[in-house]
């Protein structure tokens, strides 16, 4: 380019009449050399980035928006249909559809013309009507042409229940131990006070059944196992066994007595609780009486101020985060799944970090770099491409059946044939995921180790340090930020993995958390719940996928947030470490 310009300029200087031509020559040359200037590539590269960003942010926006609005109370509409029936529910979405010929036949002329004007299409709205126990459905479509009028009455209740999903309708009366309150006497205060007491009773029953009877059962079971253990060790005819059996029998009787007492207590509270009921009426007038303790909360969605709505919104989030699921996971909270995901990811990180780092250290620092090491490296990289379900099969076969089976035979012979470790569980799931993510850690660690300048190693060795001292004092601290990056990637991959977990310990509904008050407090052998599997279960395995859809978004949002939280923690740690090495980079 420069050459042609200088060339052109000399020509201009010598012959004035050639000036115009020379300028034209420069311009033409500049314009035709587009590929040399590189604009199309720049546009291509920028476009690729923009496209990628658009997809990522679009996806995140979809998840975040849908996840955040789910718990916000929506108005309940009462719709009068053209056939005279009433329908009450939350409008959840609307769409355009093509009504069939039979439907059109029964329509009056103006409606038919309106549809014809839209080329045979009409609009319809899906209402969440609730009252599954009465209607046998949760949602109902209403076409716009069949709607006569829409109202939002202030006194229509949206009642969340423990069973059967929400109830949409009115409260007819309150039955408090034989005393019936209805009409104007049924104030908001009376309702709330009665409900508060009912919730207390529900929690009391739960506490007795879960905690106290659970503890008695646990002790009974461990007594039985202790005895069986002695029987297996000493034989059933030994003196030790006879003595232990007698002692155990006495203890079991005491425990049985305690159990009966507790069961009677629980029964008494239940009988008391059954006397407090509420009679509800759906929009068509059909009544339904349920115990007050079956109600999670009463809301009047059409008669709420903004702050009341926010309060309800937050209380629903709190319930979601801290409660156990109900209604086949479609309602209630996800605390066990959240906890299970968290514990499993942390355990996986604890297992994968030392393992991957040690393997990479050997590969990079000790192994003689040759063909064999290259082959090993390629194999490690390829492991990252093995379908995760294969790891699940391997985990089930190797960890659960072989390792767990051996542990059971050696340490828990009294429990056989019931497996303890010999089936899927938290520990095996973590180890399976650790195996799945170990290539990520190895590759990242190797890169981090390779980035440590050779001069550092030489300086240390020249000081008379051994190889291991050099690694410990010089190489590892320098490589730690890079190793952390690998760990972050591994955690992100592991936390979002579902397929292998289905084989090695994740269940739809875990009866117990892996952490409780019974020795040894952390039960790594237990099956657990996982947010990823929860999404699959709620979205595709529940009786009503329409009701599960918002929960899918909320749970996805939660899972993404959890992964982001774990990553952010690791990034903060990594940056702390990095700062030590950044001083004086001039």
């Amino acid at each position, binding site marked *: 380019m420069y050459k042609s310009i200088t060339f052109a300029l000399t020509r201009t200087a010598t012959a004035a009449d050639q000036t115009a031509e020379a300028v034209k020559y420069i311009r033409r040359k500049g314009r035709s050399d587009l590929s040399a200037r590189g604009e199309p590539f720049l546009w291509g590269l920028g476009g690729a980035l923009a496209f990628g960003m658009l997809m990522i942010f679009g996806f995140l926006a979809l998840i975040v928006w849908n996840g955040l609005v789910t718990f916000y109370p929506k108005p309940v509409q009462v719709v009068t249909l053209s056939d005279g029936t009433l329908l009450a529910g939350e409008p959840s979405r609307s769409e355009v559809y093509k009504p069939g010929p039979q439907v059109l036949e029964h329509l009056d002329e103006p409606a038919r013309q309106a549809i014809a004007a839209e080329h045979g299409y009409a609009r319809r709205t899906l209402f969440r009507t609730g009252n599954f126990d009465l209607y046998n459905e949760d949602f109902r479509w209403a076409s716009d042409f069949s709607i006569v009028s829409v109202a939002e009455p202030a006194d229509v209740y949206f009642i969340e229940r423990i069973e059967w999903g929400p109830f949409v309708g009115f409260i007819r009366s309150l039955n408090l131990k034989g005393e019936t309150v209805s009409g104007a006497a049924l104030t908001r205060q009376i309702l709330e006070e009665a409900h508060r007491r009912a919730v207390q009773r529900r929690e009391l029953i739960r506490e007795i059944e879960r905690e106290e009877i659970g503890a008695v059962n646990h002790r009974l079971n461990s007594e039985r196992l202790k005895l069986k253990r002695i029987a297996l060790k000493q034989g059933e005819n030994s003196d030790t066994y006879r003595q232990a059996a007698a002692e155990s029998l006495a203890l079991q009787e005491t425990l049985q007595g305690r159990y009966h007492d507790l069961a009677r207590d629980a029964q008494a509270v239940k009988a008391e609780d059954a006397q407090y009921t509420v009679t509800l009426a759906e929009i068509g007038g059909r009544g339904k009486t349920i115990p007050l303790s079956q109600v999670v909360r009463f809301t009047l969605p059409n008669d709420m101020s903004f702050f009341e709505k926010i309060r309800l919104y937050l209380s629903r989030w709190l319930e979601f985060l801290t409660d156990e699921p109900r209604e086949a996971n479609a309602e209630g909270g996800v605390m066990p799944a959240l906890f299970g995901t968290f514990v499993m990811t942390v355990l996986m990180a604890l297992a994968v970090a030392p393992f991957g780092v040690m393997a990479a250290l050997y590969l990079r620092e000790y192994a*003689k*770099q*040759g063909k064999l090491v290259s082959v090993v490296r390629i194999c490690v990289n390829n492991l990252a491409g093995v379908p995760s379900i294969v790891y699940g099969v391997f985990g089930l076969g190797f960890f659960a059946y072989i390792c767990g089976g051996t542990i059971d035979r050696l340490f828990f012979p009294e429990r056989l044939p019931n497996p303890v470790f010999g089936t899927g569980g938290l520990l095996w799931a973590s180890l399976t995921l650790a195996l799945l993510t170990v290539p990520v850690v190895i590759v990242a660690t190797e890169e981090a180790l390779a980035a440590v*300048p050779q*001069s*550092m*190693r*030489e*300086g*240390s*060795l*020249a*000081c*008379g*340090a*051994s190889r291991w*001292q050099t690694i410990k*004092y*010089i190489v590892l*601290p*320098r490589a730690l930020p890079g190793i952390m990056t690998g760990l972050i990637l591994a955690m992100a991959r592991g936390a979002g993995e579902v397929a292998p977990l289905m084989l090695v310990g994740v269940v739809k509904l875990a009866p117990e958390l892996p952490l409780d008050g019974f020795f040894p407090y952390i039960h790594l052998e237990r099956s657990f719940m996982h947010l990823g599997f929860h999404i699959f279960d709620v979205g595709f395995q529940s009786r009503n996928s329409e009701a599960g859809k918002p929960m899918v978004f909320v749970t996805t949002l939660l899972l993404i947030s959890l992964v982001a939280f774990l990553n952010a923690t690791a990034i903060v740690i990594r940056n702390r470490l990095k700062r*030590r*090495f950044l*001083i*004086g*980079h001039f």
Partner: protein
Amino acid sequence: MEAARKIDENDHTVYHIKTTGRGPLIETEHFCLWYGSSQALFDVSMDIELGLVTALIGPSGCGKSTLLRSLNRMNDLIDGLRTRGAVRFDGHDIYDRDTDVIGLRKRMGMVFQKPNPFPMSISENVTYPLKVDGIHDKTVLAETVERALQGAALWEEVKDRLKDNALGLSGGQQQRLCIARAIAADPDVLLMDEPCSALDPIATARIEELINELRGRYTIIIVTHNMQQAARVSDNTAFMYLGRLIEYGETTRIFTTPRSAKTEDYVTGRFG
């Protein structure tokens, strides 16, 4: 004093070194070295006098750094390395099977081309050789820090910020810190691999001054590209060319009246 001798009939090395009469500390005998299949050192035989400063000069790729790194077996890190002949340190062949390489390196401090302080505090850098030796006594460490930093003429500049990160020092200070680290464990030998090539002239002058101060306390072997530097700081100079030791003699003689034609060509700047 001058000791002039010929190693053997086939050797062409011109040999006329200055001695102190205390005898050689390191002797190489027909030392050959291969990286894989390419030979880097050919039949190098030289005695390094105790307590003197010996400079290794020669054009790039002549094997002077390789020779230096062979003395404390830093070349061991390279895969496919082979040697023949012997390197005697205090009469013991360091390429023997039973050599304690770590113990050998502890007796030889090394300073590299580019300053390579560790990403730790200044005092931790200096005490690193003691740390790997398992010495944790605080008073011993504190004494070592002061002695080594004073030995490296860095004490006055850093005594108030010993806990600061060493990477915050200037290039010249970093190199003096590396010298302090190299002498912290009180070695017998100081190996310097072009210690000034990454430094500016003022920092270079300080290092040269320091080498003059350390003369006599340590046996110093310095590889340098800079012939003036070799002339300024060393007692003996070895000129190497294409992996061979061409001439090894008293520095003033090498630079004024070299006996080999190749040496003369190099020191007068005709090639290199």
